[in-house]
């Protein structure tokens, strides 16, 4: 028997809601079908040069066409339980992980006021500007967010988030406080092992007007390699993003910095490696010509790493990306993208990486939302 409240919701939500008892359920999804390959003449000690695109799942392109590194699908279910309470679950399957469905997020939210929401559970970790919807490629212009900026494979936080949305007329935005714990694995790194972040406390805020948006994030945590809880290091992360929209032209730039007060062990297996600190960033420019949006991006990163036996070094990378997005359908976009990535590390690092100073990658894909 459907309740009266249910009828009201149903009348308003014709398209994709269904009624179960007195909860309204929304099901939405996203997917990317993308293929690519590297075009490079360099060789490393272990074979042709590769392009590492996804820190979370280890997606890597090589000189044979592959649909794995960038293809993925996601499903999100939101149950509106009434009285300001809702439950959200998100499942993602990445090509680089054999398309196995993984529970990305599962959390409940409560509206304390129309502009303040408290969430608890497993949620997105808002490190970078695009972190919260990184997998929803339809939502941004690139085929994938700059791989050398979006490096830290820490995607989820288990804990609490408090978000307040404000509107002062001339400017509006939000402020979020978050706290909890997270686990990550530097997939794609030789011999990667999990490392833990605990006692995470952070704040992220944004302020925007009609043509500009500014975002700032700052967090601290205790980070340690799986077996080294007693050797936990104080870690810090900061990020700044500025985005501008002038009619059909948009410009976005992001800068991030992380550091550990004592270098954190990344792996013990192949070669004991310690992560010290790093900076990364990009500037991207695009212009919308009707349904076509060409764009160009410059991204770079620099990470201080210590390799036992080899000493400290700085691994750095610079990438130029050129691409175009074509909105050929109301719910789908075609993306074509070319990256040229150059390893600009210290000689001591490249001695390990081999002769792959530069690797170019070409990829084409279609992003959907449904």
């Amino acid at each position, binding site marked *: 028997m459907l309740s009266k409240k249910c009828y009201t919701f149903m009348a308003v*939500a014709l398209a994709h809601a269904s009624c179960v008892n007195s909860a309204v359920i929304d099901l939405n999804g996203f997917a990317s079908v993308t293929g690519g390959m590297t075009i490079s003449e360099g060789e490393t000690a272990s074979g042709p040069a590769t392009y590492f695109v996804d820190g979370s799942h280890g997606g890597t392109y090589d000189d044979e066409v592959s649909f794995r590194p960038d293809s993925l699908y996601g499903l999100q279910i*939101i149950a509106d339980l009434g009285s300001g309470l809702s439950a959200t679950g998100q499942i993602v399957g990445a090509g680089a992980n054999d398309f196995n469905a993984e529970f990305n997020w599962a959390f409940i939210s409560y509206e304390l006021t129309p502009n303040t929401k408290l969430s608890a559970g497993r949620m997105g970790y808002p490190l970078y500007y695009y972190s919260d919807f990184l997998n929803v490629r339809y939502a941004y212009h690139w085929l994938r967010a700059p791989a050398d900026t979006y490096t830290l494979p820490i995607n989820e936080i288990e804990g609490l988030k408090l978000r307040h949305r404000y509107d002062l007329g001339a400017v509006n935005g939000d402020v979020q406080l978050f706290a909890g714990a997270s686990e990550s694995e530097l997939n794609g790194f030789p011999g990667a092992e999990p490392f833990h972040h605990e006692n995470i406390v952070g704040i992220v805020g944004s302020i925007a007007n009609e043509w500009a948006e500014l975002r700032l994030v700052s967090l601290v945590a205790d980070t340690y390699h799986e077996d080294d809880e007693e050797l936990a290091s104080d870690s810090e992360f900061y990020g700044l993003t500025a985005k501008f929209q002038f009619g059909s032209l948009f410009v976005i730039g992001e800068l991030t910095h992380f550091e550990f007060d004592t270098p954190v062990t990344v792996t013990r297996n192949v070669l004991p490696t310690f992560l010290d600190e790093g900076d990364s960033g990009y500037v991207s420019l695009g212009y919308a010509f009707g349904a076509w949006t060409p764009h160009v991006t410059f991204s770079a990163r620099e990470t201080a790493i210590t390799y036992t036996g080899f000493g400290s070094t700085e691994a750095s990378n610079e990438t130029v990306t050129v691409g175009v997005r074509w909105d050929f359908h109301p719910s789908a976009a075609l993306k074509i993208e070319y990256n040229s990535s150059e390893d600009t590390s210290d000689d001591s690092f490249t001695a390990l990486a081999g002769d792959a100073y530069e690797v170019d990658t070409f990829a084409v894909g279609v992003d959907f939302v449904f």
Partner: protein
Amino acid sequence: MMVRGLTILGAAVTLLIASLNCFAGMAIVVHPSNTNSMDMDVITKIYLGKRSTFPDGSKAIPIDFEQGAELRAEFAKNVLGKSEPQLKSYWSQLLFSGKGVPPRQVRTPDEVKALVSQNPNLLGYLPSDEVDETVKVVLEIQ
């Protein structure tokens, strides 16, 4: 004779102008008991999920048309300042990051009137010539 000729000419010119003006005008409507006065900025923010209350603090729930409806595209362009793909990308960002859900969608102006006339918290838009006494106009867009 002259006056009649001019009247006919005047009518013809008016008809010509009217037929050239494809965009006949939109009206933003609310429940008749809603006493809020709103400007374009407030309406835009409600439809983009940047605020969820009317100026008097009461809850504001926007209603949109389904994808493919011509008025939806015009509203997106002229009021929200976004093309349809831009609007879809914008809502994808909010929806999949758990920050908000897009406005509920209906198919016809009659549905908008039926809903808005029954609920003081709803906000909708219609072609200007579809407005009747069951709803109250808060803003007209030419």
